[in-house]
């Protein structure tokens, strides 16, 4: 500590705390080391601004109105895939969630196994599973729905289990004291308490699945994604504009709706 130092941190020695400095330095070192791998090149970045602008300029074209019916059909398909996969996932996740909740599981071994199974299911992104399922059952929305449902179970089962784990123990004791059986305790004491949390989870997952469904078409697994990539590759900016707009609108509407619903659940009926 030099007395000549004018600027000081509010710490005993006037220097920033060591863990903070260490963390920041480690992060900077990480970024510096990985910069060549990621090919970070600021000249190239700045140079690309022109092309970005040109690209944005190309988006200002008269939309291809002829394409609208097909667009609507594809968007509908995307939404349908989202809803169907989420519904399948809910049905599968509920029992798995009970098995994976430490206070509801029949046996610690079952708990451990279910937890690991769920974490394996959510480990790989939907797109990887979509690739695999497309080569298994062929092109179309089916492999997309399978991939979405599969990964979603991994997330939903975990979230459900966590909501069940935090339910109030007293209510559970109360039902048990009235002679309820194993399944009755879980159905009538635990699930109703965890229900508001479940609804929040389902809204979150719907949101996530919609975004995912919009790009699964990239590997031929249905939805708007295929048209998106094709119009991109073929420089059909009059279509791309419409597709991007449609995705933006649908995602935003669902986003707002789920925000509203969640805050209603958290802050009570009226919010």
């Amino acid at each position, binding site marked *: 500590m030099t007395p000549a130092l004018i600027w000081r941190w509010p710490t005993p020695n006037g220097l920033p705390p060591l863990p903070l400095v260490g963390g920041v330095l480690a*992060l900077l070192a*990480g*970024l510096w080391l*990985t*910069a060549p*791998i*990621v*090919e*970070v*090149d600021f000249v*190239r*970045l700045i140079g*690309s601004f022109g*092309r*970005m602008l040109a*690209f944005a300029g190309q988006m200002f074209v008269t939309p291809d109105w002829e394409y609208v019916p097909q667009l609507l059909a594809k968007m*509908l*398909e995307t939404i*349908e*895939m989202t*809803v*169907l996969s989420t*519904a399948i996932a809910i049905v599968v996740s509920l029992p798995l969630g009970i098995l994976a909740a430490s206070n509801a599981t029949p046996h610690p071994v079952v708990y451990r196994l279910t937890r690991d199974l769920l*974490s*394996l299911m959510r*480990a*790989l*992104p939907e*797109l*990887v599973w979509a*690739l*695999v399922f497309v*080569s*298994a*059952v*062929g092109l*179309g*929305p*089916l492999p997309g*729905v399978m991939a979405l449902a599969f990964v979603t179970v991994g997330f939903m089962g975990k979230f459900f289990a966590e909501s069940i784990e935090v339910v109030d123990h007293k209510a559970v004791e109360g039902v048990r004291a009235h002679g309820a059986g194993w399944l009755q305790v879980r159905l009538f004491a635990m699930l109703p308490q965890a229900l508001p949390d479940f609804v929040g989870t389902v809204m979150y997952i719907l949101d996530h699945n919609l*975004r995912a469904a*919009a*790009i699964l078409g*990239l*590997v031929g697994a*249905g939805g708007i*994604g295929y048209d*998106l*990539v094709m119009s*991109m590759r073929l420089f059909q900016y009059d279509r791309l504009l419409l597709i*991007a707009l449609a*995705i*933006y609108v649908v*995602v*935003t509407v669902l*986003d707002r709706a789920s925000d509203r619903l969640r805050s209603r659940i958290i802050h009570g009926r009226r919010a």
Partner: protein
Amino acid sequence: MNVHDLKSARPQPLPPKPRNPMPVWVAATLAMLWLIVWDLEISFETLAYGVEDMAEYFSRYGQPDFTDLSRYLYLMGVTLATALWGTVFALLVAFFLAPLAARNFAPNVVTYRIARETLNFMRAMPDLLLALIFVAALGLGPLPGALALGVHTAGFLGKFFAESLERVDKGVCEGVASTGANFAQMVMYAGWPSILREALGYVLYILDRNVRMASVLGLVGAGGIGLALHDTLRLFDYGQSAALILVILATILIIDYASAWLRRRLD
């Protein structure tokens, strides 16, 4: 009211049972799902046929071929680096936008609305779409991928941060404001210190998510391990595909455990 009152009170008929709309909802949901299945032309025959073949199909992944392991590990490294850069980019953007998008910190309603809408817009653009655009502008490679992840998740991170900032105790804000602090000082003294732990949790979550997404960005030419997987699958090279999937799986599980550990340490 005492016991006597209770006895003398005439038994009153129960109020009419509120009608339970549950069955209607269940029926409507089932009908809608059936319609969806019908509209998507999902045939259960294909599915049943598929299930039969599925076991055989997946058995082809039985012998992972690790001859090219060092290349896979390098590609995984590229993927991780892409996720790291994307997350740091998102963190930087969110750090500056979130205080403007938090009602109680924003200097005025106009900046608040602009910041909110910017975040909404970034969130609404799927990262693969952004990656496609950035690849077109920047050329192939991991950089457009990192940018796409960064822009998309900046929208999420900014929203999470802004919501945490809005939950900061009003008294604490007034305590700092009453000293005459300006906007930047309010954010640095009343804002971030109060939400530090929550914010770190969100950053870890986004990092986790970006690693998953970075591993598929290769599909649109944005570098990483995804492109290799796409190619081997197209060539029906199940051994190499299996090896690639296992590498991705192992990495993501390691990150999963590491971030769970870090989160526990933070509490």
